[in-house]
């Protein structure tokens, strides 16, 4: 690499290597806390050049976001940032004052955060937002209204926003998540920076929108923009990055060209991360590096646990009714997992609530054939496990709540048994959910759900809020429990990889309707509906299921 000679130089004169946008050696960040200082970043070194995409990959708490923030002087008022070398845009940022950072941010480095709604001022239109970025860093005068509007619209168009003239006059809450993220990228690029730092830019977005944003970033990269991408998602990283740094515990555990790191991971942690990604290839196997087979499940097709027929539900909103669910029928058999995929607003969560009886359908029926005990209705494993626990209840009381039919000693024994089934020690019963990690909380939610021995388990995005390695453990646990208990599972998720991994059959929903259904292998390998095809094509190539090169083309409008 040509940069090795530079790396040893103490202070490269400006202009010596103008391609080197970021050059950091041995970065350390400490935060003082009540329990002593926390060493969040422990000696990370990285370089980003013009036209290059470098990805920092890690799980929550790995120090990846702190690193990216330290590079723009936003590590926080209490952070202590130290580095052997901290060069940003060819300047020594080691002695930067806040004023220096302000000059660099926006003009040299653009920053895009995950939370687009939180990053945009709700009281300002897109034009005002992007216009201010232009004015601060450009030559545009404060009074040149027309010039500003034209420049803003040009930027919005470049960020792939359709109808920029209309959109620029709207407020953030009037835009969809994807448009907001584009507006944010437009304002980050307004100052003409040569480097963009994007912290989880697509994490909250639907898969089709994610594909569009990644396209946009790749396009800007071809124009010569340097990109530092911070992400937990190795599949996204594989799609756009040139080089990858895998970080864990504030240190870089592996680094190199993306093909090497993903194709032949050297470090065990990288291997764990990669094997934790659920996909077509992981079906029937554990999401751990050894890929041990999961226990066999037996599906009893003649014993339907739930039969929903012609479900419809609409909600009254200002300006008319919204048909959240239209004519949805489904059956789940004993021991079977039915995947339900769709993007936000597709109505998949409403279907889950209808099956659970939490929402009453306008039309249609839900029947539970063969349900004799009244207490064993369908149970829910929610996305937000923490919010589903009464904050005053210790774990034991949370799990015991559904066991009212047992006497005190039998109930206590059952709680211990349930905790053991989800891999938690009995001592957890005395602790409070707020003292547990995200993965432990989800285990408690599962223990509570299987407590009354339900015949149907509804999992509504049960792993969406978890880190990929924790997600892998929870998915493995669910698969084991299902094989052991023979429960029918409705698995609702926006993540096609997860659904492909866990499901036997799958329903694809869009605008409240089922557009396609069938065995998961058939639907994902040879989709019959163009929307399913669009969803699958939007996946980053690393997790896209392999399809036969000439999939049979179905007649348009076919809904299986």
């Amino acid at each position: 690499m040509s940069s090795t000679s530079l790396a040893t130089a103490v202070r490269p004169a400006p202009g010596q290597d103008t391609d080197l946008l970021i050059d950091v050696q041995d970065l350390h960040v400490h935060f003082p806390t009540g329990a002593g200082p926390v060493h969040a970043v422990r000696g990370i070194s990285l370089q980003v050049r013009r036209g290059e995409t470098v990805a920092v990959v890690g799980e929550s708490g790995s120090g990846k976001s702190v690193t990216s923030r330290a590079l723009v002087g936003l590590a926080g008022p209490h952070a202590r940032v130290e580095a052997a070398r901290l060069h940003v845009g060819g300047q020594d940022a080691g002695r930067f004052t806040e004023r220096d950072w302000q000059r660099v941010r926006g003009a040299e480095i653009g920053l895009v955060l995950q939370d687009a709604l939180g990053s945009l001022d709700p009281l300002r239109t897109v034009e005002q937002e992007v216009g201010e970025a232009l004015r601060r860093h450009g030559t545009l005068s404060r009074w040149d209204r027309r010039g500003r509007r034209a420049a803003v619209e040009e930027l919005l168009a470049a960020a792939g926003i359709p109808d920029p003239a209309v959109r620029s006059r709207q407020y953030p809450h009037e835009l969809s998540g994807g448009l907001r993220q584009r507006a944010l990228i437009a304002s980050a690029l307004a100052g003409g920076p040569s480097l963009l730092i994007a912290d989880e830019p697509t994490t909250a977005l639907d898969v089709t929108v994610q594909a569009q944003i990644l396209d946009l970033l790749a396009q800007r990269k071809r124009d010569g923009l340097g990109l530092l991408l911070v992400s937990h998602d190795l599949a996204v990283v594989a799609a756009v990055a040139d080089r990858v740094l895998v970080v864990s515990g504030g240190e870089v555990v592996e680094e190199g060209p993306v093909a090497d790191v993903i194709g032949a991971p050297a470090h065990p942690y990288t291997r764990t991360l990669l094997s934790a990604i659920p996909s077509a290839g992981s079906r029937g196997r554990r999401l751990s590096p050894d890929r041990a087979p999961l226990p066999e499940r037996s599906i009893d097709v003649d014993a339907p646990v739930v039969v929903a027929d012609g479900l419809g539900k609409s909600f009254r909103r200002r300006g008319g009714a919204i048909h959240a669910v239209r004519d949805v029928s489904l059956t789940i058999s004993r021991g079977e997992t039915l995947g339900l995929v769709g993007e936000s607003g597709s109505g998949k969560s409403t279907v889950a609530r209808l099956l659970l009886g939490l929402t009453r359908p306008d039309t249609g029926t839900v029947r539970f054939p063969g349900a004799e005990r009244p207490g064993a209705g369908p149970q829910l494993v929610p996305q937000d496990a923490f919010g589903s626990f009464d904050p005053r209840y210790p774990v034991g009381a949370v799990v015991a709540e559904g066991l009212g039919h047992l006497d005190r000693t039998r109930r206590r024994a059952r709680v211990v048994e349930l905790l053991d089934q989800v891999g938690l020690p009995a001592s957890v019963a005395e602790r409070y959910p707020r003292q547990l990690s995200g993965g432990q909380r989800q285990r408690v939610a599962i223990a509570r759900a299987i407590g009354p021995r339900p015949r149907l388990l509804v999992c509504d995005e049960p792993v969406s809020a978890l880190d990929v390695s924790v997600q892998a453990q929870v998915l493995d646990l669910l698969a084991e429990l299902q094989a052991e208990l023979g429960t029918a599972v409705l698995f609702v998720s926006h993540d096609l990889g997860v659904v492909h991994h866990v499901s036997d059959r799958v329903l694809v929903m869009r605008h409240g309707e089922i557009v396609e259904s069938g065995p998961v292998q058939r639907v994902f390998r040879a989709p019959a509906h163009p929307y399913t095809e669009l969803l699958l094509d939007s996946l980053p190539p690393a997790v896209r299921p392999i399809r036969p090169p000439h999939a049979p083309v179905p007649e348009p409008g076919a809904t299986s």
Partner: protein
Amino acid sequence: MIVLDRAGRAAARSQPAQRPRRRVRREQLPVLAASGVLVLVGAMALVPGAFTAADPILADPIATLRPPGAEHPFGTDLLGRDVWARVVHGARHSLFIGLTATVLALLVGVLLGLAAGVGHRYLDEFVSRVFDVLGAFPELLLALLFISLAGTGTANLIIAIGIAAAPRYGRVVRAETLAVRNAGYVEQAALLGIGAWARALRHVLPNALGTIPILATLGLGSAIISAAGLGFLGFGPQPPLPEWGSLLAEGRNYLRIGWWLGVFPGLAITVTVVATAVVGGHLQRRFERRNSL
């Protein structure tokens, strides 16, 4: 190594590991003092005899208008009654009225707030409008209105202050109930087969009442002020019974010749109310910290 960030440098200089612990202790000092004041005032109300041997009502024509001194720490009034004894015995009346009025306000407010929160939409509308109307008047004015209709006396004073303060609790309870009613854990309880009443009692009520002890502590202070204010106007316990508000009213006319007549009852009210505010504020901060964990 290069050290960045001005605040970071400052933190590095002052040994960050030790600083937080010392700050917590300094923060707790006023809270401890305020709690001490409340305990002291409470003890005065319960066993005034332990603080003074003098009779608060017995006049002593020989020792009138004595300034504070060794024999009479707060001096004596026009009739030669010991002001310290009157302030100590007055704690019973002022605190009793403040406490019972707050309890009454809590009962009325929490019940109505809960009913509005879990009940039918029409009930909610009705209760909310009642709160709105009551809330449109200053509490003291409302209490005055009630007393002018129902007549003076300690019982009426308590009812007046209690009803006037009820909306402030009722509104909070209603809002919290509405927020908690659709919480994830209430839905989970429904799925686990817990009935509607049991859900309301087990999950909705306790979680909706989380802020009530804080509000009640803060409200106690204003109830004591209301009681003293109405007592000052002569609507409270009638003379010669000592009550802080009426003591203040008695002293008002003699401030020039006997400043101690007004200053000490006034101080008693001020210190007690400030103490409830400090303790209430501390409870609130603790509650917020717990919830932000």
